[in-house]
């Protein structure tokens, strides 16, 4: 038995909202709900993937739109990879957003 100290995970003192960093929107990292909340971004998505609102309208997916990116939907077959690069190129032109 080797000498060993157990780790501790103490609680923090108080909650002060963390500072959000600006970001470039993308099909890989940005939650769909965020894209939906930015009209210019969502217009890009709908242009490249027609009927996007219908595709993500079912009860199984709706709760996860705050966690799923467009790329997250690939495994479920809701979107295909092919238009994602075009979406990313257009989203990048919007510049950094909060």
């Amino acid at each position: 038995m080797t000498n060993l100290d157990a780790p501790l995970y103490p609680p923090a003192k108080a909650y002060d909202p963390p500072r959000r960093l600006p970001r470039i929107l993308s099909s890989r990292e940005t939650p769909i709900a965020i894209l939906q909340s930015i009209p210019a971004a969502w217009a890009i998505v709908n242009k490249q993937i027609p009927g996007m609102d219908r595709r993500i309208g079912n009860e199984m997916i709706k709760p996860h739109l705050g966690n799923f990116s467009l790329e997250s939907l690939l495994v479920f077959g809701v979107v295909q990879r092919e238009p994602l690069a075009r979406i990313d190129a257009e989203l990048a032109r919007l510049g950094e957003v909060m």
Partner: protein
Amino acid sequence: MSFEFDTNRRQALMVAGAGAVFPMVGVAAAKPPVLPQRASWPLRDIPFDDGWKFHRGGGDGFEQAGLDDSTWRVVDLPHDWGVEDVPGGTEPAQIGPFDKTAVGKGATGFTVGGEGWYRKRFSVAGYAPDARIELTFDGIYLESDVFLNGHPVSSNVNGYIPFAIDLTPYLDRKGDNVVAVRVRNEGRNTRWYAGSGIYRQVTLDVLPSQCRIARWGVAAWTRRFADGRAEVDLTTSLEGDAAGYEIVTRLIDAEGRTAAQGRVAAGSEVRQTLTVQGPRLWSPDHPNLYRLETELRRGDKVVDRLEQPFGVRIVTFDPARGMAINGEVIKLRGGCVHHDNGLLGACAFRDADERRIRLLKQRGFNAIRSSHNPASRSLRETCDRLGMLMIEEAFDAWHEHKEPQDFSVHFREHWEEVIRGMVLPARNSASVIMWSIGNEIPFRASDEGVEWEWKLANAVKTLDPTRPVTAGLNGVLGQEMIAGADTARPGFAGKVDNASTMFLDVPGYNYRLDDIEREHSSHPERVVYGSETFAREVFDYAALMDRAPYFLGEFLWTAMDYIGEAGIGATAFLKNGSLPYYFAAWPWVNAWCGDLDLIGCQKASSLARDVAWGLAPVTMTVLRPAPDGTFPWTANWGWPDELASWNWDDHKSKPLKVRVYTAGDKVQVILNGQTVGEKALAAGDKMTAELPVPYAAGTLEAVAWKNGKVIGRTHLETVGEAVSLRVSAEPLSQRRGRDALAYLKIEVVDAKGRVLPDDMRPVTLALEGSGELAAFGSANPQAVGSLKASHTKTFRGKALAILRGRGKGALRITAHSPGLRGANARVAFE
């Protein structure tokens, strides 16, 4: 009458046994103790499971003490009405407990909730007149209201946390008391089968009124190993006036010897350190347990006493080594499990939990994730005893819902109860390695979600700072953020993190295999694991475990089949030209995504995992051929429709696809003595070789080679026609009375005793003797009948009967199937 016992009196009580000492506690006291009572102080944890009355449905006045409940059904807990036949149900819309119109739809496996009432009469006339009497429910699904003698005494809205009720204010000390419990499981409140009713244990505690050990009031953890000693820190909380009392704390080893002891003056919260010389450490391979005894004394009189299992172990996490237990690196070979016990529904029988954990250990699992709720005490104690690591989980939703009536409805008002209900009862369990504050939480990266993440993580740490906080994260990790010094985890102030991970010590990733190594380059400080994984990625995760020290391991979704989330692992044959999509609708009722099926048998994915995890050098399956004009389809959580079978008489026209799983570099397939295929395996093949083999009845053998040497063989045989049934009983546990379950496998076999691998036919049971049929069914993921009746249909040649004891006595079970020779077995319950 004084409510105190001296030591000799206590020992005398133990020898006498609970049944003799507590003759007045209703039906429970009239029964013999289930387990030897030496390990528990008889004034706590008095079984209160037997002799309840149950009525399915609602009504007026059911809480009143004087209600005539003579027509109500007698049930012994644990009880789950969700696996009982739908009252008045008729096929085809209702099949056994399954109802095509159930509000929960496929999520609950088409089972039906509703309202149910429980009542139990008891007396406490034998106890001290000033004793405090508490009742502890380990879990009721879902919403419950408890009444004593007609008075409301408690309500609970979470279906998975234990809660204790002080009955004292409305107790009749001399006469009969009636406790009544209304249980409601209504609406769409869950994404999986949750059960309905008082599905976990109920216990009675008789406590001293002046001063007592607080409920879940002892916290113990191993702080240090130094020079061959273990230092165990303890905090003991008391309720009442502690002046003049002492606390004596001991660790007793498996041989009954005192390994460490401390005595200290009592206070509302008392800290102690026990030092154990040469401790026997706890680990999954060596689950050594001590008995942690806490005594509250006044002089030499023991006033209160608590005993619990305790394992001496230190778990560490760091990106350079991963997870280590007692300094030894260990990878998590984990499985997610829901709480149901298959055919028994949600009932938390200790024998059922023990069987499940044993089966998983046999298949190489060393960890489970209690998804997505706090586990039962019986499951957790089983993990402690058998050496199964465990992640306890609090929530499936926080402030935003997944189902319209799920816990998000109550979250803002009741979240702290859940955190306390998860942490306090489990914080001394050696098996528990992490606290999960949630699974795939909707909108967790929003401003409100991040604040909840912080609140929950810190609420956990306030109760138990000895384990890391985790969560199961699907999708993306959210926007990059920076927290200040007062808010951040120690060492993370001012550092860039993601919204979903910034307050987690060990992030869990659901289905994010491709992200793990990519993210490590930008966040090398993270220690991560796969909190949910697809079975099809078993070889990828095994390889990742080997090469990435910061990756702790995986938790398969799921280790074992469960009722509900019907068909998320379905396979189907779809018409050529159609879209590759299949919706597993009614009558699919179980998830069919487990490595083990609903009755505990290995499925094809488990055979592959045996190789990935080094349990077997080679395993073999055959892909079920697609009918002409169709193509095979497998759901995301599924595994292709493979069988360990060489019975394919109807498929002679085309070669069959034989899959061989091996860690070798070459496989050879031999049919009836003739080599019919060879294949070399490269790293990219992921330990899988697929070879076309034309069918001919006989023996198909696979030989695995590595570096020119044979490392293993396996074979499949063509099984003959069904001739008879075979009934075989699994070994009984030591449990007695109503706690004892017996598992009997019923198999359809040929003349040589070989199981028909894909056989489905009716089987009927006849029981004679002492005991009852608790459940009878198969692993069929589709509804085929009752789970309580004496008849069922085999699936893949097997069915399972689960018998429940009624005390000492033998039970003979005989199985019949038309045209086959019957079989029987005898079970002797204690």
